[in-house]
């Protein structure tokens, strides 16, 4: 099955810093999402981005499907950005399931 790797596994930033999170996947994908998991466990949708580039405020994401990676950019980080960021991919049409990476644990210091 598809393998999903995220890097770095852990990241500590000072408030105001920028960061880039990476997601590599081993095969072509039909869908790709980025999530932020808050301390209570809820997965918050950040981007649905099987290809191309999207921006939402201080966050943006780029997926290069032909090269099998996606990037999540966080600019001017805030303490509320702390948590775990997951990339999830769905394989070819008909697999009906998302495969999650192991996540990047981000801590933003005041």
């Amino acid at each position, binding site marked *: 099955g598809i393998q*999903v790797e995220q890097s770095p596994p852990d990241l500590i930033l000072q408030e105001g810093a920028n960061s880039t999170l990476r997601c590599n996947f081993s095969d072509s994908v039909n*869908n790709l*999402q980025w*999530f932020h998991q808050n301390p*209570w*466990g*809820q*997965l918050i*949708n950040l981007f*649905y981005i099987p290809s191309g580039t999207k921006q939402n405020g201080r966050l943006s994401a780029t997926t290069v499907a032909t090269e099998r990676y996606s990037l999540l950019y966080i600019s001017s980080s805030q303490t509320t950005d702390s948590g775990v960021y*997951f990339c*999830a991919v*769905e394989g070819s*049409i008909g*697999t*009906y*399931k*998302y*495969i*999650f*990476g*192991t*996540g990047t644990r981000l801590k933003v210091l005041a």
Partner: protein
Amino acid sequence: DAGVTQSPTHLIKTRGQHVTLRCSPISGHKSVSWYQQVLGQGPQFIFQYYEKEERGRGNFPDRFSARQFPNYSSELNVNALLLGDSALYLCASSLSYREAFFGQGTRLTVV
């Protein structure tokens, strides 16, 4: 608009018992999926239902079962609970096999 709602939010069960977890999808969403997340790992796919039919099953034992009702809500059942079943169980709904939206999860502790 209500998002995906799951109940209960927390649950403590004894080894060998049975548990039922419930999920109501976003209004209009006909697809519901279940995921298990153990501490320190990403969620793992358990089941996916669409229009009351099972469309996908992950690598979980037969102790795990699920169903979807005519109103598109869903139940996940786990029999003969093991300590290793302790996890956060997440339900997701989607409109058409695309973007998935997750509930707040049910945290199950087996003692």
